[in-house]
């Protein structure tokens, strides 16, 4: 397999719109990197530049240390799986999977061996004589993956491969991709806007916004130590709650609530005394407690958990909204008063929106 290095990559279109700004990433051999971000953040553009489907405006792309910035797509030894499958409707599954090798005029017996091996991996052996229209969306996507596998490329590129599937199939196909990665130990670049896919599949996640890389890290790092407000709000479901608070001694004072800081938190915020910061709290880090009075606006029982939505105090302002994911079954009624405590807090600089880490300032 292969290593991939993206060095200071920019993408500027002819109309001077810049889609990607100074993208840097070192992909290790056999690593599964997920590019995640909202629509229009430049993740697909980045993937297409890696594939050779878009020109790189500035920067370098290295595959196994070899500069392939100007190499045509067909010579890059990469295989791409598209959201729309891109299968040939008039060909059987076997012919679809064999097509790229047939074009290369490989020995038919070799092609057969590779197609059968890929079909075995993907559980498509019994479908090989069918046409794509006879298969489900998940099976079609597996065929698209099979077409990539037979080529034995150095890098696999996935462009939102699960977006066309329903929720159940998406989960199943996601697990198949994960198994495939474990089995092939292939270097993979995967683009998605779905944070669940990113968190479950990735060895490392690249979170993007407006063409800029916001954070690169393991799923746990992005979840537990988001670099800024954007990453904190994008990763996690339900999303993190944010409040403007003032650091006042050993307390944080917000609109309608006041919470105590631990010694460690005070140390982290020592440079922000009497300043306003942004407090972030994940819904799953909220428990019932004495600190924050909440007026409940909805109560959603999910079985193991209950999602409680409401407003802090009596305020109806959007900035006072709160979502808490409480363990167990709760039965709050609309208008009930509850009281919560924040177990784990994230602090962000109000001006830069960057995370405030211990040891800073």
């Amino acid at each position: 397999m292969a290593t991939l290095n993206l060095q200071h990559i920019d993408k500027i279109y002819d109309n001077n719109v810049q889609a990607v700004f100074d993208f840097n990433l070192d992909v290790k051999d056999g690593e599964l990197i997920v590019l995640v971000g909202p629509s229009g953040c430049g993740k697909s553009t980045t993937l297409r530049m890696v594939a050779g489907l878009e020109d790189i405006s500035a920067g370098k792309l290295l595959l196994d240390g070899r500069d392939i910035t100007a190499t045509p797509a067909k010579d890059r030894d990469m295989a791409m799986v598209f959201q729309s499958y891109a299968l040939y409707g008039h060909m059987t599954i076997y012919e679809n999977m064999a097509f790229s090798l047939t074009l290369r005029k490989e020995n038919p017996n070799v092609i057969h061996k590779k197609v059968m091996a890929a079909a075995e991996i993907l559980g498509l052996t019994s479908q090989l004589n069918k046409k794509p229209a006879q298969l489900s969306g998940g099976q079609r996507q597996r065929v698209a993956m099979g077409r990539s596998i037979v080529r034995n490329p150095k890098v696999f590129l996935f462009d939102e491969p699960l977006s066309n599937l329903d929720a159940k199939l998406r989960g199943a196909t996601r697990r198949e991709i994960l198994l495939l990665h474990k089995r092939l130990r292939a270097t993979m670049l995967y683009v998605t806007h779905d944070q669940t896919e990113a968190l479950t599949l990735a060895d490392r996640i690249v979170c993007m916004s407006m063409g800029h890389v916001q954070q690169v890290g393991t799923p746990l790092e992005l979840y537990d130590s988001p670099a800024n407000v954007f990453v904190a709000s994008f990763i996690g479901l339900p999303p993190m709650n944010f409040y403007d608070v003032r650091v006042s001694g050993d307390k944080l004072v917000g609109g309608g609530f006041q919470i105590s800081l631990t010694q460690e938190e005070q140390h982290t915020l020592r440079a922000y005394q009497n300043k306003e910061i942004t407090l972030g709290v994940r819904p799953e880090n909220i428990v019932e407690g004495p600190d924050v009075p909440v007026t409940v606006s909805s109560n959603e029982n999910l079985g193991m958990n209950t999602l409680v939505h409401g407003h802090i105090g009596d305020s109806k302002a959007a900035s006072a909204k709160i979502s808490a994911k409480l363990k167990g079954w709760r039965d709050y009624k609309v208008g009930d008063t509850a009281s919560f405590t924040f177990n784990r807090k994230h602090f962000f600089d109000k001006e830069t929106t960057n995370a405030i880490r211990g040891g800073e300032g």
Partner: protein
Amino acid sequence: MTAEERTIQRDRMRFIKNSLSSNLAILGILFNVFYFVSIYKSDVDTYYYNILIGASIVYNLVFMLAVFLSSEGVKNYKRNYSYLLAAIGALQIGRIFIIPMGAHTATTLVGGETVVVMQDGQFIRVLVYLIASAACLLASAVVNYIRCNELEAHLKSLGTQGA
């Protein structure tokens, strides 16, 4: 070819159409088209071109339909179409002795002069077309028959039913 390669080649037949047989059958149609176009060029007014050629037109239509259907059949390794193609191929040989041979030996009066209905050049040309057509159809039938047997044996060895 090693035994393993042979096995792989047979296994491929489960997923690859029998294009060779199918294409040979289509080629058989093509040569037949050349044949009857060459026949109809003659402007000699004899019974060959009034009765037999009328029948020939009907036969050619049936021929093309049957061979085209057979070409699709052999593409999917259907053995029965081998028999049909072999029979049609044999008929193509038989046709040599109807119009071409008859017209080549018959004479007619043109401008008060007795001439052969089908001259040597035209006769040889249509003969070549008919023989080529027959050869293609017979080859298609034989190739399909052999492949059907191989595929059947391979499927039996795999313990599966049908291709």
